[in-house]
């Protein structure tokens, strides 16, 4: 019964800009650009989606479907995580293409393993704070978005700072040997993202069941 909720999110509920945001990983092709911004777009899209859901009465519509309020949460959490996963998967080809012709980003970290790993970690923390916070009320988006973005900002700030610390320039490299060293960042980011999905789903369902619509 989960798949129909995901399908409903993309066919009925998704904000039209979803289909624009999903391609914004292509920003890693810009020669000098703070690529962390890509993750902020990955956080902005789900928040616009919830604003749109309020306008279209999507939450009420979904709550009246067979799974009730749990179905609302399932749909929104699945939408957020699948959208971000798709966005980052679509970023990988651009990152590889970019590495072929230019290997230094003067405006921030390169789109390498460190970038994807710590970016996933930032998204994992944002999604948990944003969605579990939103589902305490089902209406208020501002504060959950603020706290989620603040936490992500700190993590992405750490990511941008790391290459400038003594002895850590390898975290910014796109050379194959350095990429292997960066692999733990990616593994940690992936594990955090997966754990966040299940925690976010569980806590959000618990929170939203207490809400009166």
């Amino acid at each position: 019964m989960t798949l129909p909720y995901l399908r409903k999110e993309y066919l009925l509920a998704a904000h039209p800009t979803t289909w624009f945001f999903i391609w914004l990983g292509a920003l890693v092709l810009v020669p000098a650009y703070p690529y962390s911004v890509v993750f902020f777009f990955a956080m902005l899209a789900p928040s616009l989606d919830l604003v749109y859901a309020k306008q279209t009465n999507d939450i009420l519509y979904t709550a009246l479907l067979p799974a009730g309020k749990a179905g609302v949460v399932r749909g929104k959490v699945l939408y957020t995580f699948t959208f971000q996963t798709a966005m980052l998967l679509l970023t990988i080809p651009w990152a590889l293409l970019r590495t072929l012709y230019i290997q230094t980003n003067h405006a921030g970290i390169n789109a390498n393993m460190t970038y994807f790993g710590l970016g996933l970690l930032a998204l994992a923390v944002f999604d948990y704070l944003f969605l579990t916070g939103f589902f305490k009320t089902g209406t208020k988006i501002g504060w959950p978005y603020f706290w989620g973005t603040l936490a992500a900002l700190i993590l992405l700030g750490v990511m941008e700072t790391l290459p400038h610390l003594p002895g850590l320039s390898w975290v910014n490299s796109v050379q194959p040997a350095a990429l292997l060293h960066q692999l733990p960042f990616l593994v940690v980011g992936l594990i955090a993202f997966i754990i966040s999905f299940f925690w976010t789903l569980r806590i959000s369902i618990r929170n939203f069941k207490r809400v009166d619509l």
Partner: protein
Amino acid sequence: MTNDSLLAVSHLTKHYPQFTLQDVSFTIAPGTIMGMIGVNGAGKSTTLKSIAGLVNPTSGTIQLAGAENLAVMLGETVYYPEKKLAAITKTTRQFYSQWDEDQYRYYLRFFNLDDQKKVKELSTGMQIKYQLAVTMSHHASMLILDEPTSGIDPVSRDAIRQVFRHYVADGRHSILFSTHITTDLAAIADTITYIHAGTVLYSAAKADFIDHFRREFSLGVDAPLNFDDIMIKIERKDSDDSAIPA
């Protein structure tokens, strides 16, 4: 819940800071239509939303036959205004294993609905008719309808009453609807529940309901009394002209 009812609401209570729904109880038998009346803010929507699982009751129980296939329509709530009816239906029907496409197509024709139109292109009445078409197309045992005829012209209301009657005619389905339009109660309700200030004032079969209030108002057995009269006698507040600011 007994075998004689599709819905049994027992001692339903919900506390809000400004309002309390207190000890609401009633049952609905298969093949019947219950009309729920009361003024704005009396507690009708809170009762219906509690049954629909949108509101968490403070106490009480709700027992519903076929709870996994409940059909709820909240009148005048507009969903997905930018989407075509066909797109909404295509998505909605995947949630219901008992979806009946022939039934749905029949209701579209009966209500003169074009499912290639966007929701925002429909009048309020047509939007409600579309929601009814969807709501009645997955063979839900129980239809819960909040103000289904509000804002609808008399001809369309008559059409809606016809489909309601048809829906319960097999004796396996029931409808609970709230309304302010007392002619709907007279036309289609088998039983009536009156909600006043968060409590059930009276709940009975239509004829018994009228008789009860004839006795309450000390009227003769054959004295004319309609639902408007009952509501006005119960709810009327006489204005004090001297208290109105000049």
